[in-house]
């Protein structure tokens, strides 16, 4: 897989547009998912993921190959998401309706079309809730938590994506999951 990716990157660098299509195909789900988990809105996620790929294409000569192409791509995507979240802030309140709830609509549509067993509905509610809690995390914890648990990256990789030392990444993961645990507990109790 790595050699295929490197070969595609080389082809794009030498001006082969079509080769970029291969790279988009390989990474589109991962990058879209990361954007969705970061911003909690499908349309925004699509927009951001597309922009990430366009930027990667335009700046492909800046990718040196000293780390994995995916790391570079993830870095572009997380930075775009963080920028977007920061711009959103003025009219973005922690208590306001959470954009992450859009996922709930998606799930409800599926549920309407084909009634689900009760346990599955509960399971989905739990996941929607988790996405909402992830959305409430400060972005620095959110990024670390998502890369670690949703993208299953190693601490070293996350450290390259976030451009932070490994111990800092670790601390953010610990604090992030601690915060999620607290939020989760509160809801479990109120049920």
């Amino acid at each position, binding site marked *: 897989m790595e050699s295929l990716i490197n070969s595609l990157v080389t082809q*794009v660098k030498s*001006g082969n*547009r079509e080769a*970029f*299509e291969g790279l*988009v*195909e390989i990474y*589109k*789900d991962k*990058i*879209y*998912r990361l954007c*969705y*988990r970061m911003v909690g809105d*499908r349309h925004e996620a*699509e927009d951001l*993921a*597309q922009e990430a*790929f*366009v*930027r990667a*294409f*335009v*700046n*492909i*000569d*800046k990718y040196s190959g000293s780390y994995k192409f995916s790391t570079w791509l993830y870095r572009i995507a997380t930075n775009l998401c963080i920028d977007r979240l920061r711009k959103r802030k003025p009219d973005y309140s922690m208590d306001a309706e959470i954009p992450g709830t859009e996922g709930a609509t998606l799930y409800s549509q599926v549920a309407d079309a084909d009634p689900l067993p009760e346990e599955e509905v509960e399971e*989905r509610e*739990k*996941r929607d809730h*988790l*996405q909402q809690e*992830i959305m409430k995390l400060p972005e620095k914890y959110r990024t670390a*938590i998502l890369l670690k*648990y*949703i993208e*299953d990256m190693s601490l070293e990789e996350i450290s390259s994506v976030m451009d932070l030392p490994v111990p800092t990444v*670790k601390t953010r*993961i*610990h604090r992030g*999951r*601690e915060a*999620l*645990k607290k939020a*989760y*507990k509160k809801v479990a109790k109120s049920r």
Partner: protein
Amino acid sequence: MSCESEEYMDLIDKALDGEITAEEQAELDRHMESCENCREHYHALKEIIFEMKEASPVVAPAHFTENVMKMLPEVKKRSMPAQ
């Protein structure tokens, strides 16, 4: 904080990070047998991690690749600013 002892909190973090030694794990297990707080803390964190990993798959929308390809600048310029 679930338990008075920072030491066990560190061990729990280590266990969840997959960095705990067999010896430390045994020590943590022994402690958790008697300490309900730590036991709860550990299992709650484990559940959160499990939930996150199990989170339903999200895939890119239809025509994603096609749309990206359409958005690419016509001629790839060598030195476009990164912004």
